[in-house]
Structure formats: C-alpha cells, structure tokens
C-alpha cells in the first residue's frame, strides 16, 4: 500500500515539476529576494549598500507613503461595502423567477470578462467632458453644467469606485447567486406555511444562510481592493495631482521611475503585512463563529 502511494508520488513529479520550477523562480524566490532588498540601498544597476532598517525608517517618515496608503484605504472603505451590497441586490434580482433572469445574469457578469485596459478606455470615453456619453446624457436632460469626472478630486474617486463596481461586481454576484441556490426550498415552504412575509423570509432565512459566503466575499474584496492599481493608473494616472494615487502606484514609481528598488521592496513588505493582518483578523473571527452557523 505504502509502496503504491510512493510510486504514485514519483509519477506525479514530472507533471508537477514544470509548474513548480516556474512557481519557485517567479514567486517564491522573489518573495525572499524582496525581503533582502528592503535592507539595501538597491538601485536597478547593481549598486548595493547594506543600510539595515534605514528604508523602513524612511518609510514611516515619508508623507507620500502615508498619503498613498490612505488613498488605497479610502478606496477599500468606499468600494467594499458598496460592492457587497450591490452584489447581493443583483444576485437577488438575478435569482427571481422571471423571463429576464438569463439576461440579468449575463448583463451583470459581462463586464468582468473584459480586461482592465478595455474597461479603462471605455470609462474614459464614457466620462470625458464635452464629448463623453455621461455628460451628453446629462445635457439632454437639461443639466448644462460640465462635470469633470476625472479631473476633480471628489468626482475622480466617485468615477474610479463606480467603474470598479461596474467592472467587478459580477463576480461577487455569481458567488452570492450560487449560495442563494444552495438554500433548501423546504425552509421557504415551511415559512410560507407559517405565514411569513417576504421581508421576514429574507431576514430570517436568506440573510443568515448567506453569511458564510458573505464573509468569503468580504475577505476577497478587501484583499482585492488593497491591491488596486491598474484601473487607477489607466483612468486618472493617480491624478489630479496625487489625490487618487494608490500605494502600488507609488511603489511602482519608487522602483521603476526613481530606480530605488530597495525602498520599493520595503513598501511592498508594508503592504504585505497590512494584508496579512487583515486576513488573520478575518480568519480568526470566522473560526470563532464556526459553531454558531
């Protein structure tokens, strides 16, 4: 028995090896290399000098680091709750037994299959002043003010969160939808017999049943939001000024525009720790509640 398992393992090796080699080379090795770099004054052309914790000290005193970290956090605060609530509402709509069911599901999920550059350019065309769709639409209804959706700090945030919502909410909706369909029908049937209203059914059956998947979505959403970068870079470039520049863009600028890779690695580790702590808090609270659900 044991021998058979062993030979099975040996046979698995050639299949696993190609991926394993690439994974080690491009994921595991860089993680440790990054940690090493964060302790060096490391330019892109080998010009290294061990500086100990200097990069970390610099990071704590760097206002640009804090402001871009705040921007990322602001994005998370704005996008996470809206994303979850909207996904839930859409999932409930897509779960109703109407003829439009298939259309709802397709329409909500469709943007998710587009790449980030595509949605960014659609967003720019949609939101640009004078000729953009949204402003022309508003003009049609007699609102003559010219809105600068991408150039005013507050509106730029609204635009970015809105675009991200439109782009990625479909994925969360699918997760909610799958969970909705897993709720056994007999719960609703017995509720009907008890004369429960639609709201009561939602409040006491649907909602509690969705809490586990809700947690998963919350965790995924926070992690994804903290990694926000590409759509902001493409839509506003972090502007106006630096009002929408997320942390990852700042890391990119430090590393590949100022060629200060050591400092970029340091900030990447800061982001890593933030994500690690958030994940731990979530996993902890999840395991605490395990018995209840």
């Amino acid at each position, binding site marked *: 028995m044991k021998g058979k398992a062993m*030979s099975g393992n*040996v*046979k698995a*090796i*050639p*299949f696993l*090896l*190609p991926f394993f080699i690439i994974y080690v080379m491009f994921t595991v090795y860089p993680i440790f290399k990054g940690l090493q770099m964060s302790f060096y*004054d490391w*330019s*892109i*052309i*080998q*010009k290294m000098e061990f500086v100990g914790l200097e990069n970390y000290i610099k990071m704590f005193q760097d206002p640009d680091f804090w402001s871009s970290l705040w921007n990322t956090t602001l994005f998370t605060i704005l996008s996470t709750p809206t994303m979850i609530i909207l996904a839930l509402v859409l999932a409930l709509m897509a779960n109703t037994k109407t003829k439009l069911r298939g259309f709802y599901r397709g329409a909500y999920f469709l943007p998710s299959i587009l790449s980030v550059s595509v949605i960014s350019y659609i967003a*720019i065309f949609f939101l*640009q*002043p*004078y*000729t*953009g769709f949204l402003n022309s639409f508003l003009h049609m209804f007699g609102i003559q003010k*010219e809105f*600068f959706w*991408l*150039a*005013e*700090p507050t509106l730029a945030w609204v635009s970015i969160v809105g675009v991200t919502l439109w782009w990625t909410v479909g994925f969360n909706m699918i997760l909610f939808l799958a969970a909705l369909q897993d709720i056994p029908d007999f719960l609703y049937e017995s509720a009907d017999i008890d004369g429960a209203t639609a709201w009561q059914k939602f409040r006491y059956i649907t909602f509690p049943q969705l809490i586990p998947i809700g947690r998963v979505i919350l965790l995924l959403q926070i992690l994804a939001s903290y990694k926000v970068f590409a759509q902001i870079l493409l839509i506003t470039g972090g*502007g*106006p*000024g*630096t009002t929408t520049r997320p942390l990852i863009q700042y890391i990119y600028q430090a590393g*590949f*525009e*100022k*060629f*200060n890779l050591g400092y970029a690695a340091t900030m990447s580790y800061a982001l890593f720790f933030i994500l690690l702590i958030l994940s731990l808090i979530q996993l902890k609270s999840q395991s605490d509640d395990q018995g209840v659900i």
Partner: protein
Amino acid sequence: MKKKSCSMVLLLLLLVFISGCSNLAMSSTDSDKIKLDYWTLFGGGDAEFMKEIVQKFNNTHPDIHVNYIQLPFDDYYTKLVTGIAAGKAPDVAVSHISRLPQLIELGVVSSLNPDAQKQGLQWDKFNQNILDASVINGKHYAIPIDTHPIAFYYNKEYLRKAGLLNDQGKPIIEETPEGFVNFLNKLKKELPQDIAPFSFATTGIDPYRLWWSFYHQLGADGVLSDDLSSVDLEMDKAVKAANYMKDLYYKHKVIPLHITDFYRTFQSGKAATLITGVWSTGIWEGTDDLEFGVVPVPAIFGEKAVFGNSHTLFLPKNENVDKEKRKAAFTFASFVAENGQIWAEAGHIPAKQTVYEKEAFQELPYRSQYVQIADHVAFQKPSVANGTIETILTRNLDTVLNGSKSAEKAFKTAEQEIKELLQNSLLTPDE
C-alpha cells in the same frame, strides 16, 4: 514497472526541453554582416521616418545590418535600464538629452570622445546650444540628432476671419502678457462659440512645458543651482508664470477646461490655436482641410526662451566590446545625425547645422519657420534627477491649474519635494 520508466522518460524529456531552450536563444544565422541592435522610443510618424533612415543606412552599408527595435514610450527608460542591467544592452540606443545624466550616473553610457577622434566626427557642425546640453563633465556621451521644442500652431482660416492674420500668413500678436491675452480674447469674440480660441490640456506634461517656457522667458535659469546640488526655484517667476496660465482658463476663459484630447480639438477644426511640440507638424500636414501655420511660442515675457528636449543616440557600455561592432555603431549614430532632413519630415529640428543647407531640407514647408528656435531652447541642467524633477513640477502645476491649490503653495511643495529628491543617496553622485 512500465509506468515508472514511462515517468522517467517524461522527466528526461522535460530536462532536454529545458536545456534546449537556452540553446535556441544562442544560435544565430550565419552571416558576415555586423549586426547592431538599435533601441528606440518612437511611435507614430516619428517611427516611420526613423525606420526610413535605418533602411537607407542598411542599403548603403552592405557590411552592417541595423536591427530597429521599437519599445513603448511610456516605460522606455525602465526597459532600457533593466535591459542593460540584465546584460541585454543594445548596441545603439536613443535617450532624451535630459535623461543622459541619469544614465551616465547609472554607469550604462560610454564616452564618445575616442570614437569621434578616430572616426573624424566634427562636433562644431552641430548646433552649439543643443551640443552643450549633451556634454557632461567635459565629455561627449551622445550624438544629438535633433531638438524638439514646443511651438505655436494656428488655424489660418480662423485667424483670417478674426482679422488676426497678416500678409505673410503670420498671426498678429503683440508679444506682451496682455497682448497675448488680447489676441485670444479677440478670437473668442470673433469666432463662433463652439470654436475654442486656444486648445490646450489642463493637466499633465503639456502645461508643464508651457510653464517652463514662461518661467525662462521671465529670466529664470532652471530649478537647480549650477553645481546641481541644491534646489534653486525662483519663486516669484514660477508663481507668476503659473498664475498667468491659470487666468487663461478661469479668468479669460480662452481655454476650455479639461479637454481630453486637445490635439483632436485642433485637428478637427474646433480650435483656432494650440501649443505643443514640433513633432506634431507631421500630424497637421497629414490632416485634410487643415490650413495651419506655425511660429515660435510668443516671447511674451521678454526672453526668447522655450521648452525643448533633444533626442540623442548613445552607445551603451559593454564589458566585452567588439571593436568592429563599436565602430559600426558609431558610424550608424553619425549617419542618423547627418540625415536630419529625413528626420525633419517628422517635424523635429535637426541638430546638425549642415543639414539646414541640404536641398531636401529646404524644400520642406514650415520647418524653416522655426529652425531658429534651436538657439533659444531652455534645456534642463544636466542633473541625474531630471526625469523625476519634471514629474514633480508637472504634478504640482496640475494642482494649480485644476484650481485646488494656490501657485505659492504648490511651488513650495515642489521645492520641498525636489530638495528631498536631491538628498536621496541613490540619485546624487558619490560623495
């Protein structure tokens, strides 16, 4: 047992495949030609004309083959530096004159003095103003091929309609701050409402270039001290230039706010004037029904200074230099500078003055209108931090022009940021 050997064969195959990969990359086709890799950052019309030069070179030099490799402009320098760091350096590469000091500091550029002497390149045939900006610590590191300043473009039809075009087809502008505003105001009054007097971006690199021009017209000299060690931003002039620009948007309302693509506004006949780089000349020429003219940016604040940069060719450092290859690379770089008349078709001003006398150059329209700008281009001082300084100034000017900060505050921030940048150990020369 059979299965085991099967997996062994698979494993072997895999190993062969992996080792095969590296062999593939090494092999090359047999040929006696010297092969040169040439990296550029050009796009659009620029790329076409540069390809034409490369082709001409390949046709006239049977023993050399230049391989034209075009990289995306946005992360060209990132790719260039990482490429050289990874030992994949090209034989010839393009760099903006403002970026040379950083590349030299990173140790990737080799001096051209010995090559020029050996191959008899005469530096005095180049425009002195451009050449000066390419000489660092008394050494030649690159061959400048052009300068590309910004210039003032106008739609002749609209200017004529507004009575602002003289007999030579030039705009009638009194070159004072008020004169320029009056000119634009008159356009606004005389033209239909949906025609913008002046098409221009509100944020980004273009306003920065105009600001840089006004700042130098006011008599300033860069933003760094002459020894490059400290920031020397002339606050009054910086603020004055920025506020003047801000008024064009908000007070006089002659530039529509936040145009997404201000080239297109001008190109489609929705604007009377625009200021941008001379590289756009080729674009306007290729546009049907656009009757345009071009003159240097009006020197409204006195001095004739204007923003400009320059493309140069340099030879990346290579540990094991092949003498023949190096010689061929230098020959190619000189050839590109010498054939500036082809390059000028894209709109640029050739750096080599002997080009101006060529018939092919003189036959080109418009270019002769702005060749003289080459003497007045205000280049950045040769600091390693030029790229980032430009980013800092652009970002802070953005906050003035979008109305979120006062010019005084924005340039105080910029000054502080540049100061911190210069203290960054990686960007300052070794003490």
